[in-house]
C-alpha cells in the first residue's frame, strides 16, 4: 500500500483568486457573500450568493481549448493551473507520466439552459456551435482539463451532490494507495450563474438575511436561517509518497483517512447515524483515535436542520476531547460540488500557516452547538491532524483526514 501525499493545491473562490489571497481572507475572517439583485429579478426567494469572478481565459488558452469549456471547467482550469505550479509539475513531467484526474461536479445548468435557448430561438442545432456538447456534459471539467494538460491516467467526473469534491479526493487517494496511479488531480467545481441554484432556492433552503449579506452565513449559530450558495473550484494534487520524494517535491500534507457512508434514509435530510458512520470509518481507516484530531473543518452550511445533525454526530465521537470545530462556509457560503475539495485546500493552508480559520457569525450557540468547541475567532494553533466533513443530498457522506507530513 502506498502512502498518499498532497503536493499541490489551488483554488479560485469568493475568498480569493490565489492561495495567498485566500489564506489572508481565511485568517481575517473575511466573508465573500454579496446580494445579487439579478437573482431577485429572476424570481429567487434569496439573492444572496458568494461572489466569484469569471476567469479571463483568452490569452491563456487558444480558441479550440476554450470553446468547450463551461463555467465549471473555467474555474477548474484556474485552480488546476495554480495547483500544478505549487506541485512543481510542468508539462514535461505530465507528458512523461500517467497523471490522472478525478474531479467533482454535479451540474452544468447555465450552459445547458443557454444552449437550449439558442435551439428554441433558431430552430437549428448546428447553430449551437461545436463547443456546446462539451459544455453541457457534467464532465466538462475533466474532459477539458485532460485535453488541455494532456493527462493520460484515470479520467472521470464524480457526481455526489455536495460531497462530490470530497469523494473525488477519497477516490484519488484509494487509486494511489492501491498502486493503480501515482499522481491524480482531484478537486471540485461549482458554477455560480443564475440558472444553477433556482431549484435549490425553491426549497427555501437559502438564508434571506439580505439586509446584511456578510452576516447571513452563520453555521451552528442559534439564529441561522439557511445556507448561501457559492462556487468556484479547488484542486488538490495527490501523489504517492514515493513519486513525490523521487522528484524532490514539497509535501504539503498526507492523506491518512477516507470514510464514507450512505444514510439510506431521506433524500434531503441529514442523518446522525449516517454521518457518525462516515466519521468513524475515517478514523478507523487512518488508524488514529478521535483525540488525535486537532481540528474539524465541519460541513455545516448554516441550515437549521443540517447543522444540528452534524453537531450531534461530531459530539458523538469528539465530544469527550473538546476538539476545535469551525465551518469555513461561514465565510464562503456553500460551495456545493466544490466544497469538499476547497475545504481540504483551506485546511491545508491553515495547517501550513498555523491557525484555525474562524466560524464567523457564531454569536449564540443552540443546544447542540453549545456542546462543541466552536472556534469563533481566528486562533493560532499548530495543526498536526485535521478532519474535514462533506455531506450531500441523497444521504452521501464523506470524511477525509489529513496530517502534517513527517
Amino acid at each position, binding site marked *: 500500500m502506498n502512502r498518499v501525499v498532497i503536493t499541490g493545491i489551488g483554488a479560485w473562490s469568493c475568498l480569493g483568486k490565489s492561495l495567498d489571497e485566500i489564506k489572508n481572507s481565511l485568517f481575517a475572517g473575511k466573508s465573500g457573500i454579496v446580494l445579487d439583485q439579478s437573482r431577485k429579478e429572476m424570481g429567487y426567494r434569496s439573492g444572496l450568493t458568494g461572489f466569484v469572478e469569471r476567469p479571463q481565459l483568452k490569452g491563456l488558452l*487558444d*480558441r*479550440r481549448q476554450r470553446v468547450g469549456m463551461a463555467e465549471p471547467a473555467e474555474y477548474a482550469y484556474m485552480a488546476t493551473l495554480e495547483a500544478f505550479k505549487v506541485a512543481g509539475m510542468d508539462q514535461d513531467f505530465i507528458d512523461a507520466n500517467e497523471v490522472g484526474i478525478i474531479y467533482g461536479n454535479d451540474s452544468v445548468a447555465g450552459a445547458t439552459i443557454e444552449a437550449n435557448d439558442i435551439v428554441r430561438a433558431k430552430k*437549428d442545432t*448546428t*447553430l*449551437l*456551435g*461545436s*463547443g456546446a456538447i462539451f459544455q453541457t456534459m457534467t464532465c466538462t471539467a475533466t474532459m477539458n482539463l485532460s485535453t488541455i494538460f494532456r493527462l493520460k491516467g484515470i479520467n472521470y467526473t464524480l457526481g455526489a451532490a455536495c460531497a462530490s469534491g470530497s469523494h473525488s479526493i477519497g477516490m484519488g487517494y484509494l487509486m494511489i494507495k492501491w498502486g493503480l496511479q501515482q499522481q491524480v488531480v482531484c478537486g471540485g467545481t461549482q458554477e455560480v450563474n443564475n440558472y444553477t441554484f433556482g431549484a435549490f432556492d425553491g426549497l427555501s433552503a437559502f438564508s434571506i438575511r439580505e439586509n446584511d449579506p456578510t452576516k447571513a452565513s452563520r453555521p451552528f449559530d442559534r439564529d441561522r436561517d439557511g445556507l448561501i450558495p457559492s462556487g468556484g473550484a479547488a484542486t488538490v494534487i495527490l501523489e504517492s509518497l514515493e513519486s513525490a520524494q523521487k522528484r524532490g517535491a514539497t509535501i504539503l500534507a498526507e492523506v491518512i483517512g477516507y470514510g464514507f457512508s450512505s444514510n439510506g434514509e431521506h433524500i434531503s435530510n441529514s442523518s446522525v447515524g449516517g454521518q457518525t458512520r462516515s466519521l468513524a470509518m475515517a478514523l478507523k481507516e487512518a488508524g488514529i483515535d478521535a483525540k488525535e484530531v486537532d481540528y474539524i473543518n465541519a460541513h455545516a452550511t448554516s441550515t437549521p436542520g443540517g447543522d444540528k445533525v452534524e453537531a450531534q454526530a461530531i459530539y458523538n465521537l469528539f465530544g469527550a476531547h473538546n476538539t476545535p470545530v469551525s465551518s469555513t462556509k461561514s465565510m464562503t457560503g456553500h460551495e456545493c460540488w466544490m466544497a469538499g475539495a476547497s475545504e481540504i485546500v483551506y485546511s491545508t493552508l491553515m495547517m501550513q500557516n498555523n491557525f484555525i480559520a474562524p466560524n464567523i457569525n457564531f454569536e449564540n450557540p443552540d443546544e447542540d452547538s453549545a456542546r462543541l468547541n466552536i472556534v469563533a475567532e481566528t486562533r493560532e494553533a499548530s495543526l498536526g491532524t485535521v478532519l474535514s466533513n462533506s455531506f450531500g443530498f441523497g444521504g452521501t457522506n464523506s470524511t477525509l483526514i489529513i496530517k502534517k507530513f513527517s
Partner: protein
Amino acid sequence: MTEAEIIKTVNNFLVEEFEVDEAKITPDANLRETLELDSLDYVDLVVVIESNFGFKVKGEDFTTIHTFQNFYDYCYKKVQEKEVA
C-alpha cells in the same frame, strides 16, 4: 453590403473569433490551412457566418471554398441573394 464591407466583416470575425494572425489573411491563401480548421471548427464557422450575415451555410458549400477570395465571393453572393429576396 458592398464587397469591401463583406471582406472587412469576414476578416474581423476571423481575427476575433478564430484568432488568426491578420497578416496571414491574403486573398489567395488557403482558408482551411491558414485557419487550421478541423471538423469542429467548420461548425463554428457556420455559426459565425449566420450571426454576421444572417444566412446558414450548407456543409457541401465548403467543398468549393478553397481560398479566402473564394470565401469572400461566396459570402457576397449569399448576402446579395438574401438582399434581393
